[in-house]
């Protein structure tokens, strides 16, 4: 009798587990439909969730460096002007119109009337004047150069709706547009320079106040952050009610989350994962999208030459350990000829890119300089060898590696590669192989970005491969090759007084056409001098849940293909909406758990029945 009861116990507990699973499933479906009807009733448009592997470190608009930071700032704040959809040149935004005086020294902007900050306070020209003057006076961060501090005379609000900007020289800087997010004077107006530098701009429970279509309302540092729609945005209220970003440690986990409906959108750094998603597209409600090539990858040479009279002061103080052979233009030219950029695009980028030429990507259609057929450096191992032979490089010790005619040393360069890039090591393998063919040995090392930064800032390297994501306007990218950027943004500590002069000239060029000529000349100069080899322009690879969302526009670009999300101005952020009334959140994954629990319960029930049956039999046997 006791034995039978034990079997019963197992049977009953199994039944309880099955019932629990069923109950949980019911509760889950009830809560899912509950939230769907609630959102329909409130007229809100759901939460759009992006997955990323890039952490956000600061939302202080003056201190942003990385893309997730700019993504939040661009939705939370306004610039003086917007970027036009098709040209990415300045278009009406906060400033509705502008004019330049006939002598070119004064710009007058009409500011949109009736604008408010997200806390309801009026937004006026005074806020813009204050933000710009604070940036100039406190020399704030990376945005300072946009306000051409060397020849800006004054920036003043002449009324609530008019801003006047005067300069010593004619310049088009005010309509590039200046990448300085306009901050509310009524909140930060009393901050000292030190305070504004340390200002967090977001603290728990206090939403960040800007004037954009969204505002940052939650930020769990290192995990996720949420922006809530601003229904009073001057450009119209967004359809969606929230935009959330979730941080992942690796792209694989993120792509799985996208497939399972936990996130809605991602911009992928991994070509392999993108290809995998693309091969499955159509079957899982995920749409992939190949955007324009805005970013580029480059191999930089250590150009810090402390013996040169033109050397930047930083380079003189930190001479580093660069191999002097790389200061010979012939060596750099030969290396450039030895790199097969098309193969890199085909094999490393799986075709999602274009071979690189100059530091202003073709995406900036108006300012990108394409070298002429005569100037173009293609792929030719023979040319490369010839250039080195003509310059006197011979393998004097017959070890397969050329020797420097000046020092007699082997041409052996250190090459630093990034471990934090999906393609860092692969690029290195190709480059090393090509250089070997022309008699140059390399010692390559794959390191973290932190370590690479240290090597780069202390000029302790020969060559490294890294990348850039330039602005639509070429000014910033061009500035990184001026000599006073050595030690801050300069890739190579390149120093050329002629180039420095051209940089100022392009800033003060009266018309875009004049400026274009100078910008062309600067790119040409770098293309021939080769402080770095632009290897490729890589395309933006995006994927989103199209079964759930609609309205992402891809026409923000001067090229046929644009970005779906994270555009310079809020376009898709306003048009995006839930597809139909379906806002059912991810039920698939949860039901997986319930299936397992259910199966487990069923197994226990069967075991219980078997036990009862067997025990019963043995009781009979005993009888």
């Amino acid at each position, binding site marked *: 009798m006791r034995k039978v009861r034990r079997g019963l116990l197992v049977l009953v507990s199994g039944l309880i587990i099955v019932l629990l699973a069923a109950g*949980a499933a019911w*509760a*889950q479906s009830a*809560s*899912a439909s509950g939230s769907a009807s609630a959102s329909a009733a409130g007229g809100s448009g759901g*939460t759009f*969730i992006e997955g990323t592997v890039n*952490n956000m*470190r*600061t939302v*202080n608009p*003056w*201190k*942003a*460096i990385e893309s997730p930071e700019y993504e939040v700032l661009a939705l939370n704040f306004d610039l003086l002007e917007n970027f036009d959809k098709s040209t990415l040149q300045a278009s009406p935004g906060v400033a509705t119109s502008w004019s330049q005086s006939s002598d070119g020294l004064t710009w007058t902007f009409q500011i949109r009337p009736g604008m408010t900050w997200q806390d309801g306070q009026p937004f006026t020209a005074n806020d813009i004047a204050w933000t710009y003057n604070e940036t100039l006076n406190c*020399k*704030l*961060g*990376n945005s300072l150069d946009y306000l051409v501090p060397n020849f800006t005379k004054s920036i003043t609000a002449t009324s609530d709706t008019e801003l006047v900007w005067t300069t010593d020289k004619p310049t088009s800087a005010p309509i590039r547009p200046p990448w300085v997010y306009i901050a509310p004077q009524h909140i930060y107006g009393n901050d000292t320079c*030190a305070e504004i*530098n340390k200002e*967090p701009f977001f603290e728990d429970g206090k939403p960040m106040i800007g004037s954009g279509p969204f505002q940052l309302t939650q930020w769990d*540092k*290192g*995990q*996720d952050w949420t922006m809530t729609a601003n229904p009073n945005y001057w450009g119209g209220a967004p359809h969606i009610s929230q935009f*959330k970003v*979730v*941080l*992942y*440690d*690796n792209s*694989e*986990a*993120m792509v*799985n*989350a996208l*497939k*399972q409906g*936990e*996130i809605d959108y991602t911009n992928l750094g991994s070509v392999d994962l993108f290809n995998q998603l693309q091969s499955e597209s159509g079957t899982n409600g995920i749409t992939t999208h190949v955007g324009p090539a805005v970013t580029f990858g480059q191999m930089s040479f250590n150009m810090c030459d402390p013996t040169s009279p033109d050397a930047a002061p930083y380079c003189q103080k930190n001479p580093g350990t660069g191999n002097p052979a790389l200061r010979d233009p012939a060596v750099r030219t030969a290396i450039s000829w030895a790199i097969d950029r098309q193969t890199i695009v085909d094999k490393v980028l799986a075709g999602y890119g274009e071979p690189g030429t100059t530091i202003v990507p073709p995406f900036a259609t108006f300012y990108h300089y394409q070298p002429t057929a005569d100037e173009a450096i293609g792929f030719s191992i023979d040319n490369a060898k010839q250039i080195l032979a003509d310059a006197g490089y011979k393998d004097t010790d017959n070890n397969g590696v050329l020797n420097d005619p000046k020092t007699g040393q082997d041409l052996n360069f250190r090459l630093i590669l990034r471990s934090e890039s999906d393609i860092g090591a692969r690029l290195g393998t190709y480059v090393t192989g090509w250089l070997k063919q022309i008699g140059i040995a390399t010692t390559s090392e794959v390191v*973290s970005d*932190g370590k690479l*930064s*240290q090597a780069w800032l202390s000029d302790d390297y020969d060559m490294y491969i890294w990348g850039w994501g330039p602005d639509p306007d070429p000014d910033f990218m061009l500035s990184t090759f001026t000599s006073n950027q050595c030690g*801050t943004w300069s890739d190579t500590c390149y120093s050329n007084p002629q180039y420095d002069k051209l940089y100022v000239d392009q800033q003060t060029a009266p018309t875009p056409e004049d400026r274009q000529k100078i910008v062309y000349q600067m790119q040409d100069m770098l293309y021939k001098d080769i402080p770095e080899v632009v290897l490729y322009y890589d395309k933006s690879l995006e994927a989103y849940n199209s079964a759930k969302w609609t309205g992402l526009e891809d026409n923000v670009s001067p090229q046929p293909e644009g970005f779906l999300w994270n555009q310079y101005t809020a376009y898709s952020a306003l048009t995006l909406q839930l597809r139909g009334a379906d806002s059912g*959140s*991810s039920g*698939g*994954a*949860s039901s*997986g*758990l*319930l*299936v*397992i629990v259910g199966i487990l319960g069923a197994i226990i029930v069967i075991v219980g029945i078997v036990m009862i049956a067997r025990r019963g039999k043995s009781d009979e046997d005993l009888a």
Partner: protein
Amino acid sequence: MGTAKYLLGKLGQLFITLLLVLSLAFLLFRVWQPGDPVATWAKASGAHFSATQLAQVRHEWGLDVPLPEQYVQYMGQMLTFNFGTSTILNPDASVSSLFWSRMAKSAILIVTSTFAAIAIGVLLGIYGGWKRQGKVDQASMGSSMVLYAMPEFVLGMILILLFAGTLHLFPVSLYESPIPKTGLAHWTDVINHMALPWVTLTLAYVGEFYLVMRSSLLDVLGEEYIALARAKGVREKYVLRKHAVPNALLPTITLVALSFGFILSGVITIEYVFSYPGVGKLSVEALTQRDFAVLQATFVISVIAVLLANFIADLTYAYLDPRVRRA
């Protein structure tokens, strides 16, 4: 009397080890610094700072006083669990709050999975030792060896491929859905997210407990008092339950205590593979971003956890085996 003396001795040892380790941490983080924390912070924050501003920060962090003085300050802070504020991960937030909010999520994962691993491992170990070379023993021996030898992250990835990649049954990352749920749905959501890391951790530790329990039971079963009990005609079930298992459990108990001590270090890879927001992931973040205040705290707290676990293991051992106390 003997017990008190034993306790005091162990406590003294614990305290001395703690001081030594804290001093070692001081050497690591302050004297032999992997990069100047102030310079790293300035770089991470992206703004240009003047020398005076940097000096100001150095002062705020107490890095501008002579090392001996820093050492005294540091010891005071550590012994009172005052870990200061985070510098890079979450500027100006207290390290303790950052740590404990993550610790809660790690603890729920680790404690439950370790208990499951102990239960499964010990029971299988007893059965395997008792019915040595039986079918169950051979099967569990083989799988235990494989699980014990396999790195946790490999196991985790296999489970991801199987359950998430192919079967699409479980989410592979985070603690809950990006849009948090409420009520009962919240808990099924959390369990659902925890399922794969939980199974990974459980499987990873089952092997260890199984192997230790089995071999120690085999040792005990070879003892003379077992032979005596059998000779007296005690039924096999009772030989096992009353004589063999209690004695064989001793090494397992040490292992249990120690494995709780390694909670913090053990989950680092698992939390990283599953993007699970616990302390393991926190220490990886602190390390890669050089948040030395957080790194120091995770280091010190994991050391304390190991020391305490050792201490508890000693005490339980002494309680269960009187010979230890007298020795």
